[in-house]
């Protein structure tokens, strides 16, 4: 967490500074979708949602501080003759994404990100780890100042020598509340 916070703060400072310097848009948005654990037999598909703060810092580059939380599905298994359920856990994260975002009403963009992820599961030790995001997005602006985004991303949370990976598919909307010349 201590390693990620400076990154997020730096992104915010750079974003705000650049926004005032080159005439860009600052917005806020929300998103939601599904989070699908990859190669994790102890969690099932769940719901993810969160908030984003997209800041254009260069003509093709957006920095996007975010907060997200995912509630993963419980695992149900039968051992012998008895059925059991294990809590699928929750993941909450905050960090920053960098988007290579083209202009225009319809945009197709790659993005990467880094964030602090907290994994919580009943009767298990809470874990706070660094995670990375890689993905592709499709954005379109049907109404001025409003953007709609569809994204697919791989979220990988490092656990020492292994990781927990998720495929997240989300839809979101954002509103550009600040435009500087």
């Amino acid at each position, binding site marked *: 967490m201590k390693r990620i916070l400076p990154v997020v703060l730096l992104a915010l400072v750079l974003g705000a500074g650049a926004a005032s310097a080159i005439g860009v848009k600052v917005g806020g948005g929300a998103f939601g979708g599904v989070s699908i654990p990859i190669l994790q037999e102890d969690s099932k598909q769940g719901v993810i949602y969160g908030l984003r703060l997209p800041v254009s810092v260069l003509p093709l580059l957006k920095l996007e501080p975010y907060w997200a939380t995912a509630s993963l599905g419980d695992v149900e298994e039968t051992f012998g003759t*008895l059925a059991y359920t294990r809590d699928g856990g929750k993941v909450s994260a905050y960090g920053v994404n960098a988007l290579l975002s083209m202009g225009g009403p319809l945009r197709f963009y*790659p993005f990467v990100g880094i964030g602090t992820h907290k994994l919580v599961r009943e009767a298990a030790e809470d874990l706070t780890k660094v995670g990375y995001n890689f993905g592709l997005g499709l954005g379109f602006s049907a109404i001025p100042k409003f953007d709609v985004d569809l994204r697919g991303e791989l979220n990988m949370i490092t656990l020492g020598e*292994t990781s927990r990976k998720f495929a997240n598919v989300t839809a979101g909307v954002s509103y550009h509340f600040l435009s500087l010349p």
Partner: protein
Amino acid sequence: MRNLRWTIPTLALAALLAGGCILVSGQFIISKDLPTPLVISPGAVVHADVDLNAVTVYQDHKADLKDLSDVAILGEFTNTGSVPVDVSIWMTPALTDLGDAASVIIAPGAVKVWGPLRLGVGESKKVGWDQSAGLFKAGKAPLIAQIKGDGVFTLYALGASGSYAFQLDHGVLVAVIDAGK
């Protein structure tokens, strides 16, 4: 801008490479049925030999086993005695054949790994997965060491004190291993 176009994919690739083997990793459930029923009293302890090498999933991932993210002992515990009992699970780090509770507790390397689970007189309790995971405390580390080691050990169910009697039906040891290549 042409350089920038390659920046994000390059950063993503660098992050992936830095991730190394954590990319090819997963969490897998292994389970080992225990003898059923296990009928226990202080002077007549019955043990469960555990050789995880006979478990296919464990065999498949043993060479790549990095950590354990979860462990539980499941089953239906019944107090068949005339006094309440606090059930605990003890482990010896090899295959042993000890016949009474006192011998188990003083055996070399023996450690209490799970419990206590309180059972009233005549009470029967199916221990849930979440509940059982929470009953591993200080003894979890030695059990994890065994699973990460040769995978061979012995489990004993014991009462805390007195002239208790209980049995475990459909017992099973369940673990979630972190494996990565």
